[in-house]
């Protein structure tokens, strides 16, 4: 396994301006990702995980209040680039996205082949014929019959559309693909199928993945590393083997205990209470209100402790 860092995110901040005040959707996020690895960003809805995808790829809405931090891709500081050179050199060239509900994000009036070819034409300046050849190659990689190039999105099943969206992210041969909830709207068998495709792509094309999801069970299908996000912050970064065996942060533990299991007869437990509002998150640990192991110190912002290579943002692990 190559252990060179491909993506390094440090202290990434994305705050939105709203009528009610600033929403701190991404608030000091950090993680690393090596070549040919997949990191899973786990979190519940409203924890800022989709905003994180947007912040990494700089696909920002207009109501930005604060956007800073450092994102290094293969050592290049992408935050220092201006928008135009970012568009030309990074987005969809070295880093691409499979958006949430990708199956509905395809253009209904374009043939899927033309849509897949488009990033090649725009970013690599190739002729359409050539781009279509590349698109056909990608279709084979993701397991869509090549004659589907001439079809429209509505003529494909959900699983096929999802594969097409993955092909579109891969057509320019990027180093990194961000997958935002790639299988949440799909059936069980289709979902397992898509994960088989992603596993194969990781081997064949040597691509890295950032998988953003709330589904802990299926995320283990792809994960080499796991980052848990809560209320805009990363609370734990761990390797998959240790995380799925026994997570450290109290939130991660409770999240893991809430997963119903098919193969073990353990009664799942839920987490009482609700995540805090990102408008005015509590001082100190943001999970403290719901945490069964809170103590006096939790009213102060916890530092990120390093426990044998696992990073945990919790007072329990500071020596």
């Amino acid at each position, binding site marked *: 396994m190559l252990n060179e860092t491909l993506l390094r995110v440090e202290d990434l901040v994305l705050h939105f301006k709203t009528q009610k005040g600033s929403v701190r959707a991404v608030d000091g996020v950090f993680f690393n990702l090596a070549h040919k690895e997949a990191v899973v960003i786990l979190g519940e809805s409203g924890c800022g995980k989709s905003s994180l995808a947007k912040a990494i790829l700089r696909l920002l809405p207009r109501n930005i209040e604060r956007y800073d931090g450092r994102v290094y891709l293969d050592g290049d500081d992408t935050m220092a680039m201006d928008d135009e050179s970012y568009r030309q050199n990074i987005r969809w060239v070295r880093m691409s996205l499979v958006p949430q509900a990708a199956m509905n994000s395809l253009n209904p009036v374009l043939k899927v082949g033309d849509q897949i070819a488009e990033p090649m034409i725009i970013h690599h300046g190739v002729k359409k014929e050539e781009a279509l050849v590349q698109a056909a190659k990608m279709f084979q990689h993701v397991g869509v019959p090549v004659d589907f190039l001439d079809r429209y999105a509505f003529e494909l099943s959900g699983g096929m559309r999802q594969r097409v969206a993955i092909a579109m992210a891969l057509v320019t041969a990027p180093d990194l693909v961000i997958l935002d909830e790639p299988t949440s709207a799909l*059936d069980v068998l289709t979902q397992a199928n898509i994960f088989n495709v992603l596993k*194969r792509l990781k081997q064949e094309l040597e691509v890295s993945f950032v998988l953003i999801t709330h589904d802990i069970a299926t995320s*283990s299908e792809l994960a080499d590393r796991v980052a848990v996000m809560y209320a805009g912050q990363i609370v734990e970064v761990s390797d998959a*083997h240790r995380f799925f*065996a026994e997570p450290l942060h109290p939130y991660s533990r409770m999240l893991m205990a809430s997963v119903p299991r098919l193969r*073990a007869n353990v009664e799942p437990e839920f987490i009482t209470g609700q995540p805090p509002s990102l408008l005015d998150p509590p001082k100190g640990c943001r999970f403290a209100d719901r945490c069964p192991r809170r103590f006096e110190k939790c009213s102060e912002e916890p530092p990120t402790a390093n426990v044998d290579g696992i990073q945990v943002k919790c007072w329990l692990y500071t020596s």
Partner: protein
Amino acid sequence: MTDKQRDVLLSIQDLHVWFELRRFGFGHAGYVKAVDGVTFDLHYGETIAIVGESGCGKSSLMKTILGLNKPTKGKVTFEDLDVGLLGGEALRKYRSHIGYVQQDPFGALAPFMNVQQILEEPLRINGIRDSAERESRVRKVMEEVKLTPVDDFLHKFPHMLSGGQQQRVVIARAIILEPKLVVADEPVSMLDASVRVEILKLLRGLQEKYHLAVIYITHDLSTVRYFSERVFVMYAGNVVEKAPVNSLVHNPKHPYTEALMDATSDPDANNALQYRELPPGEPPSLVNPPSGCRFHPRCPKRIEGLCEVEEPYDLAADDHLVACWLYK
């Protein structure tokens, strides 16, 4: 577990629900055979799960039970009513015995009504004129689903509630008329992992307290064992396996059930190291389903010369029924 002495609440016999296809708006062009020969009994206070992928006919089955579709052939009997024959006032009265929990709570709640109005609606429709009585029943049901303190929630609109709270309102509306049966159509698939368990436990608590019969429709096998006594697995309009939940989970018999279980992940880092074995292809068209066993084109264990010719019927080992020739 299944108590043979319990009385039957809902009985479904050889139910077929077909939708006619028309060419250019007229002229017959075949049928979509959404439900094609389903038979089962549901007892008072029993919970069953219907598991299947989208397009397997589970929603059509549910709508027929609710009286929203008419059976093409076969019979749905609720207590001693033939549901297919009901209309008008009788149908309305029948529906007051059934609560319905929708999949998408936000879509199921009218955005211009507050919680109180939403919960009073079924009472109004069923002729409870006294507003004080309506309010007291609304308050009581909100306590039941733990939308407390009640006064905080009474005047809120759906968009002001979280997904879990919205689903609680939907559940409160389903049980406010004290139904005998609750049909829950993927009640937690739109919710977060930690809220899912909370809502399922709430439903289970209500089921036990009021001795409700529940039909839990889902595609997620991993929640089934915590929430039902019997499981029915549907594929392409047929029920292919009927079994008590533990028997199904520990000893799945139909190759399709096995495939569903193989495709369901438990959180385990070793999952990333191997590919999952899956049946090839996709579920068949319901207009022209395959002959014989409908799963045979995708089945790894098919018996040539038998599975594609003859349709399997329910073969039983005790109370574990499976429609598959492997078990003859």
